[in-house]
């Protein structure tokens, strides 16, 4: 029995790369995203509303305390301008033994006058060992910026809602000591990770965002259009 299992398994693993490319249509590699923010003094009302609307109604929302580092590497395609490629490493500072998370995030689509209901960007989420930071540095990536995000995560079906406060790192760069908030508000994100071509989920997200109005306005935020003087 066991040998039979192994036989079928080796069939599966003979060509891992080909397997993964044929499985592309079931790998969740598209992120649908809506963003917004609330002032500190209004966040309790929003959390209360989310607690009522979301799946984890009987349990308290899941807290997180993450450190994120954003790396870029220049992608050279012959005959074109070098494109920056963005890679993010995220780790839970409250669970140091958990795997690190590496994310590739593509160019967002759906901003501007595009008819899409949400931002859509390609995304690859990979769990990794803690050597990933050194690996990316040696690979030729440059650390662009880093921050600490502390907040709560809610779930509603396939949707994920995070309400988080963004902090700067202090000079010694040790995230758990970071205390200086970047602003007087909380970042609110509504996202779904799905295989490509499942655009119906975007409508569900729009409807859900509608239920959170006017506590928070979730919309397609074009990061490039935010005035730089805000920082």
């Amino acid at each position, binding site marked *: 029995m066991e040998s039979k299992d192994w036989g079928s398994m080796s069939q599966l693993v003979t060509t891992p*790369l080909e397997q993964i490319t044929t499985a592309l249509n079931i790998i969740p590699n598209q992120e649908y995203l809506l963003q917004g923010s609330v002032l500190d003094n209004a966040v309790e009302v929003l959390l209360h509303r989310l607690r009522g609307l979301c799946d984890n109604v009987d349990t308290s929302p899941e807290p997180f305390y993450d450190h994120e580092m954003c790396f870029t590497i220049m992608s050279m395609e012959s005959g074109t301008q070098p494109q920056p490629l963005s890679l993010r490493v995220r780790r839970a500072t409250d669970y140091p033994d958990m795997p690190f998370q590496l994310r590739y995030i593509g160019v967002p689509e759906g901003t501007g006058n595009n008819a899409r209901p949400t931002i859509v960007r390609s995304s690859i989420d990979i769990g990794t060992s803690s050597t990933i930071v050194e690996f990316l540095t040696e690979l030729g990536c440059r650390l662009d910026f880093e921050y600490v995000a502390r907040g709560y995560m809610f779930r509603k079906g396939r949707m994920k809602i995070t309400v988080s406060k963004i902090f700067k790192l202090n000079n010694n760069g040790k995230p758990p000591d970071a205390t200086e908030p970047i602003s007087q508000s909380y970042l609110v994100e509504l996202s779904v990770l799905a295989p490509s071509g499942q655009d119906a989920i975007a409508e569900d997200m729009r409807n859900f965002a509608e239920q959170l109005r006017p506590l928070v306005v979730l919309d397609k935020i074009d990061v490039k259009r935010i005035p730089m003087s805000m920082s």
Partner: protein
Amino acid sequence: MGVTVLQPFPVLDNRTGPQTIDFLTKRVMALGAVQSGQFLVDCDTYVSTPSLPPQRTVHVVHNSEHPASVFAVLENGPKTVPLVADGLFDLLMLKIKNIYPKKQPKIESKGPRFELADFCIKLGSVTISQNFKGVLVEVEYRPCVVAGYCSGLMREFLQGFLGSCVQGLPPYLQNRMEEIYQPINTVEQYLEHFAIYRKPAGFAM
């Protein structure tokens, strides 16, 4: 998962690769080992483009013993950085293929896998794009994760069915006798041997 020794087995002039594997199969079966399927360890090597000096190399290794993981080892001059990641890491390598185009043909070791009490034995034929290069025998002693605690036992077991080609534990393990053994250590041993097979000049073992 336990301490694993990777040992090259010389292929005699009057034998082919498959004959050598058959020969070793008979020996381990005579010891009472039971075959439990096949195994595969493969390695793709990506080299950075000249636009990103200095030149760096990324070896991406899959091991059927750990089907949900991808192992990567980055070489930047004398410095190496190991990484263990999810299967989706392969997709990321596709994303950076402009910076790290694949350079060398795939090298792999595959063959039958046996179990014998606490040991797991794998008889691998090493091939580079279907060309036979040699035989690598992998032996794992599953109850133990510190090489120093089982070195004598493993040497004796290896000599028992491989004979005099086994001098002692390989230098890779000699340098890590007190460390906790991890799956990436097996991958690093494969990479050491693959590098020898890849050398264009002459025969490696």
